[in-house]
């Protein structure tokens, strides 16, 4: 096997003298992969640490006092002091952070410090599926819309359809999501009565009901994402369609649809995939407006509600999970580059 490869290397002009042996290259490849994995994990740790520290510091600046939330109106100063002492709010900031970090490292995100004192991890696990589903559905719909739109637009670049699509994506991008959501509710829910509003049906209550309730909020999210993806994908497709290999594919008789999907799409999708990753991470953590509009029990609602009552433990936990998802999503995106372009893969064949 080794001999064979070396012989072939010698056969390939130009690389004969420089090519190291197969075994050496394979060893170098394995070492490189191990090192990259280490760097990845270290990066993840650093991100999570900085995010949690930053959140902690920011929360201490908000003058919402959880003790006041717990006691309500008409409490004595002594009660107040006792509650604060009990919650550990009088301890120095760094000490509180270290406490929290210590338990978080063991997977214990603590309990909410305001009534009804739910376990933070439980609350996150209840809210996360809603947000993840919304984000995935929204981005999925956006892909479904944007790929054909971008292809159509790029194939007829400069033509009338292209100009209409461009105008459409621009106008959608300039509409804030709360307005788009309101319009959709007004049109599809109030007007035509096709979809419910301000209700949520959990996935375990049946897929049909769940999708039925998720459709409008997901569509609201999908609108802006579609516009963004269409624009980016269109411009990359136009560049790709100029390539010789597209002409070569035409010159051997391949049809337009085949060329678009099989030859042009993959090399054109780098920017779109990058945006997709960022969007996915962002949507899971912060679709507050859409969640508020449709009264959905997602992560955005959870974090904003907790911040308003000064429940820093819940906010901390939620932010940590969101950051984790963000980093994980982008690691997946990085991996996908290897699929999109084989030249990115470390070749050791």
């Amino acid at each position, binding site marked *: 096997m080794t001999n064979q490869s070396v012989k072939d290397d010698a056969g390939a*002009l*130009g690389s004969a003298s420089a090519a190291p042996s197969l075994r050496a290259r394979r060893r170098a490849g394995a070492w490189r992969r191990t090192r990259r994995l280490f760097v990845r994990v270290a990066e993840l740790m650093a991100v999570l640490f900085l995010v949690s520290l930053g959140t902690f510091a920011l929360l201490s600046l908000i003058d919402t006092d959880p003790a006041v939330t717990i006691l309500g109106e008409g409490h004595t100063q002594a009660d107040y002091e006792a509650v604060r002492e009990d919650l550990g709010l009088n301890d120095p900031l760094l000490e509180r952070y270290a406490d929290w970090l210590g338990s978080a490292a063991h997977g214990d995100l603590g309990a909410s410090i305001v009534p009804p004192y739910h376990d933070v991890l439980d609350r996150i696990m209840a809210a996360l599926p809603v947000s993840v589903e919304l984000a995935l559905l929204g981005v999925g719909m956006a892909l479904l819309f944007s790929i054909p739109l971008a292809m159509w637009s790029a194939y007829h670049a400069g033509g009338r359809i292209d100009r209409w699509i461009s105008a459409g994506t621009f106008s959608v991008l300039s509409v804030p999501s709360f307005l788009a959501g309101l319009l959709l509710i007004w049109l599809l829910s109030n007007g035509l009565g096709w979809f419910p509003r301000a209700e949520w049906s959990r996935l375990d209550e049946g897929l049909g009901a769940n999708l039925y309730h998720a459709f409008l909020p997901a569509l609201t999210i999908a609108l802006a994402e579609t516009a963004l993806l269409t624009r980016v994908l269109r411009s990359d497709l136009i560049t790709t369609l100029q390539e010789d*290999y597209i002409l070569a594919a035409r010159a051997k008789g391949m049809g337009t649809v085949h060329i678009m999907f099989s030859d042009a799409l993959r090399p054109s999708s780098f920017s779109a995939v990058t945006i997709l990753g960022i969007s996915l991470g962002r949507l899971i953590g912060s679709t507050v407006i859409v969640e508020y509009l449709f009264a959905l029990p997602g992560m955005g609602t959870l974090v904003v509600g907790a911040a308003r009552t000064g429940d820093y433990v819940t906010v901390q936990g939620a932010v940590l999970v969101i950051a984790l998802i963000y980093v994980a999503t982008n690691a997946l995106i990085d991996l996908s580059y290897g699929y999109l372009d084989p*030249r990115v893969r470390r070749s050791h064949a």
Partner: protein
Amino acid sequence: MGRPLLVVENLSAVITTGRGPLTAVDGVSLSLDRGEVLGIVGESGSGKSVLARTIMGLHCSDPRFALSGTVKLDGRDVLGLEPSQLRAMWGPEVGMVFQDPMTALNPVKRVGTHLVEAVRKHQQVTRRDAVGQALDLLDMVGIPDPRRRINQFPHQLSGGMRQRVVIAMALANRPKLLIADEPTTALDVTVQRQILDLLDRLRGELGMAVIMISHDLGVVAGRTDRVAVMYGGEIVETADARSLFDAPRHPYASALLAAIPSLKGAPHQRLAAIDGTPPDLVMPPSGCRFAARCDAVHDDCRVQPPQLIFDGTHGTACHYPVNPLISTASNTSGDT
């Protein structure tokens, strides 16, 4: 020999550009027999590539191109075909080899996919059979160890190997006409010769006609039956290869020949270059397009565009040819 495989008559291609209509190909006529090799030579911007692609019909559905004239390939009017008819023709009737093998293969597709999809597009065969054909094709173009290469990506192959794959792709459905558009320009000098030899061998084996496009007369020399020299979108001289190389008549063809470095010349001699730049095809000059760069220019050259006038099979578009045949010298200059 019967009916020629390819007949091009008075073909023009006008491209819409930001500066106005650009006449990239201007009234070109040529014909090609089955199994014949035609070289088209000219510097960059002379319209060779546009001519080749127009002959293939690749510009037919492009709204920026206004085409006129006729192209008959095997009796069919290429410029009048529907897009689906054109696609059915690309592959089994005519194939194309491109200049740069680095860009002519899709970087995200394996070598085998390039070939298999071409085979299956035009032949009703199973995947397994198509893969078998792909292996045969790789073997035919001289790629060692096809079983390994077929699963590799283009970037894992050297430039010469890639060009062999591009050739295999163009030949997948055994076209009657192969158009090779500067097939060696992007390759190392040592590889250039191998690729040209390969094309020669395959032409013999498959009996196809070849149009070999190059800016380099040296590439065309000795490998073509006929040569057409293009300048400014027009054919300025066409002849069988031997008489063109031995006695070029157009001053441009003669200057091109003089620009080929020769081992016979004295060492350290400056190469003969042609001064100036090709004409602007948005606003072409009124007379002969080569007049501004011609050593032997006369006053009437700048006014009166010369026609391509044939003496037997040797056609020249020049009022004052360099190597006029005695019989036609007076005839040609008196005519126009």
